[in-house]
C-alpha cells in the first residue's frame, strides 16, 4: 500500500474508496446525467430549440424520440430539460406532464394522471375524479380554454410511446396531437419509443395530426469511442477530495484500458451491444470488487465481470439439477435428435432412460415411476421443458407432449462443468445415438 500517504491533505484509503464507490455508483446505477450529451449534440440542439419555442413562443409541437434501448433517449430528454430549465423564463412558465406507457395502461388512468400532474384536480370539485367521459371533457375544455399567448405551455412526455398507440381508438394521442395542431393551450408532445415502426401504429387521422418530427438516436459508436467512454466512466473527477488518490486511480484506469486482454473483453462487449446499460452493468461488477485491500480495478476483475455477464442462464440452471434430472434432459436431447425436434412425453423419456440403464450404465439404477414423474415436473417448473399446448387438463401427465427449451450446446456446456458427473452419463450425452 505504497499509495497511503499520511499527510494531512490525503484522506485515509478507506475513506477514498468509499468516495470512489459513491461517485462511480451514482454514475453507473443512478443514471446521473452527463454534463453534456456525447455523440448526440445535433439531436440535443434540435430538441432544445423545439421545446424552447414551446416554452417561450407558445408554439405547439410534437416530436418523437426513437432509438434502440439504452441509446440514451431519456438521458437526452433529461439533459434538454435540465438545460431548458436553466432559463428563468422557461422555468416559471413550463408545466410538465410525464406519462409512461407501462404505468398508464389505458386512457382513463392517463387522464387522471394528467389532471393530477397539472394540479387541476382541485378544480374538479369535491369528488376528485369523475367518470372517464367527464375527465376527458374536462381536460379538453381546460386545454381549449387556453390560447397561445396567455396560457402556460405544457410539456407532455410520453415514455414508451408505442404502448399509448394501443389504447382504445388512440383517443389520448388524437386529442393531444389535435391540441398541438390547433389554436389552444400551447403544448409540446414528446414521445419516447424504441420502435422504429411507431408511425405505422398510429391511425391515419392521428398520424396526420402528428408533426412527423422524429429524432433518431442511432449511435454510430466506434470501438475507440467506446473504449474512451469506459475510461471516462471510470475516471474520477478533478474535484475529488484526495487529489493524489484520484491521480493514481485515473492512471490505473488508463493502464487498465490499454491492457490487451481488457481490450479484447471490451471488444466482445462492444460487438454484442453498444448500449450504455450493458456497459454500466459490466463496470458495476468491476467496481463491486474494489475494496481497501484492492484499491484499483485490475484486468482480472474485468475478465471475471465479463464472464459473469456472458454466462449462459440456462446452462447455469442445469448445474443445479440432480443426476436423475440431468439424465432425463440427456434422454430428451437424444429424443430430439432422433425425432428431429418432435415433441415427446414422459413415457418416451422414461423409456429412453431405461434403455440407457440397460445398455450402458453401471453407476445408475432405475427409479420408480413416481420419482421420475417428480423429476419431470421439477424440470417443467424450471421451464427447461414446456408443454406443447397449455390445455392439458384432459391428458394424463405421463402422455402430455413436451418440448425441450434448451439448446444442445447448452447441455454440453453444462455437462462439462457439472461437478462429479458420472463418466457413463457424460459419454451417453456425447454419443450420437442413445
Amino acid at each position, binding site marked *: 500500500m505504497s499509495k497511503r500517504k499520511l499527510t494531512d491533505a490525503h484522506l485515509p484509503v478507506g475513506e477514498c474508496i468509499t468516495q470512489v464507490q459513491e461517485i462511480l455508483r451514482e454514475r453507473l446505477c443512478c443514471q446521473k446525467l452527463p454534463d453534456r450529451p456525447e455523440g448526440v449534440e445535433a439531436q440535443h440542439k434540435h430538441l432544445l430549440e423545439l421545446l424552447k419555442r414551446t416554452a417561450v413562443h407558445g408554439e405547439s409541437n410534437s416530436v418523437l424520440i426513437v432509438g434502440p434501448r439504452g441509446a440514451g433517449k431519456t438521458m437526452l430528454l433529461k439533459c434538454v430539460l435540465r438545460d431548458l430549465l436553466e432559463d428563468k423564463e422557461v422555468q416559471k412558465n413550463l408545466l410538465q406532464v410525464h406519462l409512461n406507457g407501462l404505468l398508464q395502461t389505458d*386512457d382513463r388512468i392517463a387522464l387522471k394522471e394528467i389532471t393530477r400532474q397539472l394540479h387541476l384536480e382541485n378544480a374538479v370539485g369535491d369528488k376528485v375524479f369523475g367518470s372517464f367521459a367527464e375527465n376527458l*371533457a374536462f381536460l379538453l375544455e381546460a386545454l381549449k380554454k387556453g390560447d397561445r399567448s396567455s396560457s402556460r405551455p405544457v410539456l407532455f412526455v410520453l415514455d414508451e410511446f408505442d404502448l399509448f398507440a394501443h389504447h382504445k381508438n388512440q383517443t389520448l394521442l*388524437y386529442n393531444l396531437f389535435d391540441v398541438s395542431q390547433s389554436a389552444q393551450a400551447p403544448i409540446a408532445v414528446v414521445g419516447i419509443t424504441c420502435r422504429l415502426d411507431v408511425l405505422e401504429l398510429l391511425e391515419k387521422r392521428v398520424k*396526420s*395530426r402528428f408533426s412527423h418530427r422524429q429524432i*433518431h438516436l442511432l449511435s454510430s459508436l466506434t470501438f475507440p469511442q467506446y473504449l474512451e467512454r469506459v475510461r471516462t466512466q471510470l475516471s474520477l473527477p478533478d474535484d475529488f477530495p484526495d487529489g493524489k488518490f484520484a491521480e493514481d486511480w485515473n492512471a490505473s484506469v488508463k493502464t487498465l484500458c490499454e491492457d490487451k486482454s481488457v481490450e479484447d473483453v471490451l471488444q466482445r462487449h*462492444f460487438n454484442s451491444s453498444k448500449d450504455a446499460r450493458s456497459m454500466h452493468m459490466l463496470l458495476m461488477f468491476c467496481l463491486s470488487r474494489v475494496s481497501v485491500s484492492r484499491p484499483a480495478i485490475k484486468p482480472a476483475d474485468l475478465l471475471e465481470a465479463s464472464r459473469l455477464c456472458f454466462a449462459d442462464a440456462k446452462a447455469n440452471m442445469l448445474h443445479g439439477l440432480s443426476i436423475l434430472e440431468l439424465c432425463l434432459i440427456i434422454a430428451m436431447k437424444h429424443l430430439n435428435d432422433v425425432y428431429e425436434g418432435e415433441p415427446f412425453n414422459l413415457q418416451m423419456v422414461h423409456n429412453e432412460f431405461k434403455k440407457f440403464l440397460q445398455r450402458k450404465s453401471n453407476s445408475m439404477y432405475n427409479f420408480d415411476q413416481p420419482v421420475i414423474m417428480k423429476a419431470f415436473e421439477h424440470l417443467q417448473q424450471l421451464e427447461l421443458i414446456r408443454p406443447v399446448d397449455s390445455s392439458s387438463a384432459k391428458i394424463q401427465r405421463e402422455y402430455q407432449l413436451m418440448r425441450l427449451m434448451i439448446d444442445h450446446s447448452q447441455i454440453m456446456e453444462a455437462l462439462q462443468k457439472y461437478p462429479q458427473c458420472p463418466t457413463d452419463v457424460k459419454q451417453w450425452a456425447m454419443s450420437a445415438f442413445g
Partner: protein
Amino acid sequence: MKYSSRLRVRRSYRWLGEPLSFNRKLKTYEYRSLAISVEGLPRTTVINTGQHIFIEGEDEDNPYVAKVVRLLGDESGKQKKAVVQWFVRVSEVPLSKLKLLGREPHPLEIFYYQGRSCDDEVDAGSILRPVQVKHLDGAAPFPDSDHKDILYVKLSWDSKTFRAVDPALVDPELAPASSPPPRPCPKPSLPPSPPSSPPAAAPASRGPPRRALPTPDLAILRRALSGEARYSRATMSAGKPGAAEAESLHSATKLSASKCLSAKRRNASGRTPGVRKKLELSSPDKKSMIREDILSQLLDEELESEVMLAQRLSSSPPRTLPLTHSLTPLRKAHGALAAAAQGAFPLKPSSVVLSKLSETSSPPSPARATTPSRKKEPKTLKEPALGVLAEVDHENSPMLPDAATTPRSSKRKSAQLVSSRIRKQLNLLDSHKDLISDGEDEDEFVPSRKELQSSSEEEEEEGDGELDSDEEVVLKKGRHAATPKPKQRTRSGTRTPRKTPSKKTTPSTPRTPRTPHRATPSIPSRSLPARQPANVLEEARTRLHVSSVPESLPCREQEFQDIYSFVESKIIDGTGGCMYISGVPGTGKTATVHEVMRCLQHAAEVDEIPPFHFIEINGMKMTDPHQAYVQILQKLTGQKATADHAAALLEKRFSNPAPRKESTVLLVDELDLLWTRKQNVMYNLFDWPTRRHARLVVLTIANTMDLPERIMINRVASRLGLTRMSFQPYSFKQLQQIIMSRLNKVKAFEEDALQLVSRKVAALSGDARRCLDICRRATEICEHSAADPSATGLVGMSHVMEALNEMFSSAYITAIKCASVQEQLFLRAVIAEFRRLGLEEATFQQVFVQHQALCRVEGLQPISVSEGLAVCQRLGACRLLLLEPSRLGVLQRVRLNVSQDDVLFALKAD
C-alpha cells in the same frame, strides 16, 4: 334525472260537439271545442277556438302561449291537432333584440308573434290549460296585477321588430272557460293603491328579466293561481343538481321530506342563496309554492284552480315558514330564535297574519336598513310604467345615505301597530339583524344588475304593502303581505350570501358535485407573456403552424359554396337534412365546415338568415359513442344527463313541436367512431333531421368515402341520404397556393423550394398538415444552418430537401447500419436461414445455428444462447425483427420486419 322521475299528470282529450266541417283533401274534421279532463278529477276544461292557451314547452315553468285558431282531428279521431297563433314571452325574445323595445318589458307581457319561422300546428296533447290574454293600448300602463293567469299584449314581434298590434287579433271571442275566478281580497285593511302604483318595479322584481332563462317568479306565480300542481311536483322530484335549477328543486324535495323544523330551516336557508345566486329561478315565493303544492298533494291530487287557490289562501300562515327560515343564513347562531319564530307563525290565526300584512313595508326590525329609503320611493315611483330603469337607478342612489337612519315605520300607522307586535316576538332577532343589514346595504348597492333587481324587488314589496288595493295585486301580495318580515328577511338573506361567498357556501344544500360542470378548468396562465416572432423566419413559422387560422381557405371554394348553400337553405326553410363529407386526413374538411359556420353565424347576426345553434361533436373526443348524446345535450341546453337520459331528452326535443325553435346545425366529426353494434347512435343522428319539427341539420365528417356503404346498416345509410361530398387530396398547385396564402407576402421561401415541398406532399398524401409541417421544419433547418443567426436568408432547396428526408425517410437502414456487430450478424443469420428453409420464418434455435456458423466464419468468438437471445430481443424491440413472446425462449419464431434486400443493402454498405 329531472324528467324521468317526474310524475306526469295524465290528461285525456276529446272533442266536444260535432265537427264543424270536413276537409276532404286533408281528411280532417274541424271542431269548435276540445275538452281536457285530468285523470282522477271529475272536472273538465274546455278549450274553444279563439281562446288563449298554454302549450307545453321546453320550460316547464314558462309554457308557451298561443291562441287557438282551429281545432282539427283526423278521421280516426286519434290525432288531435290545433292550429294556433303564437305569442312570445319576454324571455323568448333574443336578448339583443329586446333593446328594440325601448323599455323594460313587463314580466307578464307577451308579444303577438308574426314571424314566419314557426310551425303553427301543435299536437292537442301539448295543450295545458287556457289562459287569459288582454290587449293593452301601446301607451297604457300595465295594470298592477298579480293575477298570473292574465297576460298582456301590447306589441307584436316578427323576430325583427316590435309593432303595435290590433286588439281584434288578440282578444278572444270567448272568455276562458275555466279561468280562475277573481279571488277574495285577503287584505282588507290595506289602503287602496293607485292602479299605476309601482308597476315598473314589478318586472325587475320578478326575477332577472333579461336572462336567457325564463323569468321564474312569473311562472311560479301563475302556476300557483291556476293550481298546476303538476309543475311543482315535477320540480320537487327533480333530483340531480345538474343545473342550479335542479339544485333548488333538490332542496325542495328535502323540504317536503323532512318535517323536522331544524332540518327545514337548514334547507330553506340553503335553498335561498343557492337558488338566487345561480339561476334566480326560484324566489321565496316559489318555495312557499312548492310547500303548498306538497301540502295539496298530500291531501289530494288537486289540480283545479279553485281548490288550490282556496288552499293557498287559507294556508297562508304556514307559508311563512320557509321565509322565516331564510333568516338562518344570516345568522346561524340564532337558529333557535328563528325556530321559535317559526313555531309562532304557523300557529297564529290567519287574521293575525293578515293584519301583519298591512305592515309589510314597515318591518319591525330596525335592521331593515333599506326599507326606509324605499318606503318613500313608492310615491316617487307613481309614474307610468315606462320609467322603470330610471326609477330603479334613482331608487338605488339614495339608498346608501339614508339607510338605517330614517325610522321606517313612521309612515304608516297600521304598519306601526303590527310592527310593535312582531317586535315583541322577534326582538332578539332584530337586534342582530341590525348589524347585518347595515353591512349588507353598504356592499349591496353596487350598481350591478342583480342588485338592481333585488332592490327593486324589495321596493315593490314595500309599495305593495302600502298601496295594495287592486284585487289582483292583493292576491299576489297576499303572500308577501301574509309574511311580511320573513319575506323581507329572506331577501336580505338571499342577498348576503351572494355578496359573501363564504356565507353562501356554508348553508348551501348538501350537494356533491359529482360532475365538474361548475368547475372552470383552465391551464394556468403564464407569468411572462409569450415572445413574439422576431425575424422573418419565425414569423413565417408562426404563420405556417397548422393552428394559425388562415384568413381564408383557398382551394376549397367549391366545397365551401356547396356546404354553405346546403346549410343556408335548410336554415331558411326551417327544415332538416344530413350531409356526409369524406376525405383523407388533412384535406380541410373540418376547417371548411367551420369556415361555413363562421360565415353563416355572421349572416345570422346581420339578420340575413334566421338565427341558429351550431354545435360540434367529435367521435374522437368522447370515450364512448353514446357520450354523443350527452355532449349534444350539454351543448344545446347546458344540461347534464346520463347517456340514456340525454338520448330521451333529445328525442323529445327533436320530435315534439316547439314554437320559435331555432334551427340546429350539428357537426359530427370522425363519424366512424360513433359506430356501435346496433348503430343506434348513428340511426338517431340521421333520423332526427327527418322529423318534422326537428329543424336539425347534421353535417358528418369521416375519412372514407364509402363509409355509409361499408359500415352502416341499410336503415341508417338510407337516412343519411345521398347528399355526399368528397374532399379530394390537394394537388401540388393547391398546396402551393395554401402555403402562399398562409405566408401572406412574408418572403421566407424560395419559389422552387415551395414547389418541391408541395409536389412531394401531393405525390405522397396531399395532406396539407404535412405540407405545413415540412415547411415549418425547413425554416428551422434554415435558421440553424446559417452561421450568423441575424443573417438568415431564404429557405432554399437544400433546407427543404433535408426536412423532407427527415420526415419521409425510413430509419430502418440507418438503424441496421448502426447496430452492433452481433446484431448485424444475427440479421444475416436470419436471412441465411430463410434462404435455407425457403420460408420467411424460422425458430430462434434454427437461426442461432446459422449465427454460430457465421461467427466462426467472421472470426468472432461464438456467443452463448442467452446472449444470442438478448441480441434477438434487442432487434425485436426495434421492430427490425418480429418475434413471438419471449417466454418461448429458443423456440420462438423469428420473422424479418424489413425486406431482405434492405438488410443486405445496409450490411453491404459497410
